[in-house]
């Protein structure tokens, strides 16, 4: 039996600076690499400063406070050519976020439906879904954007002959008009919605506790649905305030009122959603297929209904496989929205490009673009790593 008190600490490793020592070589290589990268970097910076001074362009971000002098086609906040470059860039960022978030939402919904359709027992549904995925995946996004843009601009009729599929919705070559909601009543509606969400969360906790204690299962899904529909309506009705529907109307040569989705926005959104949904469909399909058939069988053999099997056994395992590539698709939507510059939608890249061309501040402009996208992608990477660690299946 070893007497631990008598063991001697291991001797410190001898420092040997000969070339044969891998540690020495490692240090030498690293110093060389850093020197190389640093040297190249310094050389580029030196040249840049020289070239900029030759062209009389100052570095720095002061140009942001200067007057922009160009107009922006659309945005969530008002903008005139008299506003600063800084405001212009803000409009661009908001536009990017607007199209990216809508794109993510619709692409996820459409992609999930198509992904599940690819696994359907129905041959027709399965084939149509497969054809969709193969066609949309193999045509470049830029081409699809051009295609949608051209369809809206060239083949859609003018405002006077616009398509009128639903009440208050018009599709023409000026874009898509939909009715919008105004008034105090809207605030109450949203308050009601918030309340409904809080109530359903509390209900969930209560239902779970009741099931633990008595075993009775509560119809949570149906109740939540009812809550989400009834509470906002109730809140609005009780408040007695007004809420009006602003319906677009044809006035002269164009529409007034309502919400306008410009052709550029519509084309970009369609293109992004349809292109990315094909990839998301594949992600969802492979996620569901990754769950071994034996899991379905074992849960079924215990007598659990198919819908519960999906919820308790299959989906948790499928989501593990789905979420990493899904977030990378979300990232792709955000990055691909930069193609907006090709069809004239004023997103972040487009606005900064204009700024860059006008002021000559190329470095600052590009740095801003990269900083914006890097922020988004690094945060998503970060989230991905955290999520992966958290839900990783525990194994030996």
């Amino acid at each position, binding site marked *: 039996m070893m007497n631990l008190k008598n063991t001697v600490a291991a001797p410190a490793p001898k420092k040997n600076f000969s070339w044969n020592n891998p540690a020495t070589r490692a240090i030498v290589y690293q110093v060389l690499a850093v020197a190389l990268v640093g040297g190249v970097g310094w050389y580029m910076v030196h040249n840049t400063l020289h070239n900029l001074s030759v062209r009389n362009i100052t570095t720095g971000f002061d140009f942001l406070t200067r007057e922009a002098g160009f107009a922006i086609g659309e945005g969530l906040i008002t903008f005139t050519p008299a506003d600063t470059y800084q405001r212009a860039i803000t409009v661009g960022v908001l536009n990017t976020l607007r199209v990216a978030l809508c794109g993510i939402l619709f692409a996820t919904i459409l992609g999930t439906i198509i992904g599940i359709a690819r696994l359907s027992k129905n041959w027709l549904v399965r084939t149509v879904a497969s054809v969709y995925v193969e066609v949309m995946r193999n045509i470049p996004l830029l081409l699809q954007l051009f295609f949608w843009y051209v369809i809206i601009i060239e083949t859609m009729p003018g405002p006077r002959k616009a398509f009128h599929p639903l009440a208050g919705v018009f599709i023409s070559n000026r874009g898509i008009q939909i009715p919008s909601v105004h008034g105090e009543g809207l605030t109450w509606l949203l308050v009601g919605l918030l309340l409904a969400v809080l109530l359903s969360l509390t209900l969930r906790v209560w239902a779970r506790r009741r*099931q*633990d*204690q*008595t*075993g*009775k*299962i509560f119809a949570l899904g149906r109740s939540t649905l009812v809550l989400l529909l009834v509470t906002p309506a109730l809140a609005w009705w009780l408040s007695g305030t007004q809420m009006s529907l602003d319906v677009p109307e044809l006035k002269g040569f164009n529409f007034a009122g309502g919400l306008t989705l410009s052709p550029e926005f519509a084309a970009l959104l369609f293109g992004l959603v349809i292109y990315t949904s094909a990839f998301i469909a594949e992600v969802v399909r492979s996620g569901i297929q990754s769950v*071994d058939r*034996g*899991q379905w*069988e*074992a*849960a*079924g*053999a*215990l*007598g*659990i*209904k198919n819908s*519960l099997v999906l919820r*308790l*056994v299959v989906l*948790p*395992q499928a989501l*593990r496989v789905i979420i990493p590539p899904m977030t990378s698709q979300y990232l792709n939507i955000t990055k691909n929205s930069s193609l907006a510059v090709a069809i004239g939608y004023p997103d972040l890249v487009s606005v900064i490009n204009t700024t860059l061309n006008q002021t000559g501040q190329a470095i600052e402009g590009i740095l801003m673009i990269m900083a914006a996208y890097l922020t988004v992608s690094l945060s998503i990477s970060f989230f991905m790593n955290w999520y992966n660690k958290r839900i990783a*299946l*525990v*194994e*030996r």
Partner: protein
Amino acid sequence: MANAIISMQDVNKWYGKFHVLRNINLEVASGERIVICGPSGSGKSTLIRCINRLEEHQKGRIAVEGTEITNDIRHVEAIRRDVGMVFQHFNLFPHLTVLQNLTLGPIWVLKTPKAEAEARAMKYLERVRIAEQASKFPGQLSGGQQQRVAIARSLCMDPKVMLFDEPTSALDPEMVKEVLEVMVKLAEDTGMTMLVVTHEMGFARKVADRVIFMDEGEIIEQNTPDAFFDHPQNERTKLFLSQIIH
């Protein structure tokens, strides 16, 4: 047979054109232990999987405890509550702990309160001698341990019949014994009706009331273990027995 717990009459099944079960007639009495053996492709797994509707038979009648298996989903769910199954590849749920694997069925199907479900789960975990692994995940256990958990999981539903589909075929040799011991103990301590598809003939001799030999979708011969192994009647049975070492 009156009061047969499982009754199969003229059961036939096809996979496309392949006739996998041919005119199966089988009556299982309550508390009976049956071992089904045969060469691979003989349809033995398909037979027991028809009993809990993991496979659908196209012709004939299967009834469990008097309830006939049809396309009516409520019948199927009722039967699955009373019939437990142990799979060759365990099929434990990897994202749930051992304890959660066992309580999933009781909580969501039998609507048992959580505390009661957990107590029952621990009882069965002790019975299969693996109680200390309750909070581990299946990925952390050996094959033999996982299969024992799978047996406990089925037992938690308090089934009347237990089906075993080649429970030890995927295990390393040194783990086969621990699982067989659990199954023998189950047979000896409870009056559980068991249908076991296996090649483990030692188990058959020890525990079975009847051994059934299947080949090419038909039941060729069935007899008590001693009669079956020592005096096989049919040529095909003799051929099969000569090929396996027991």
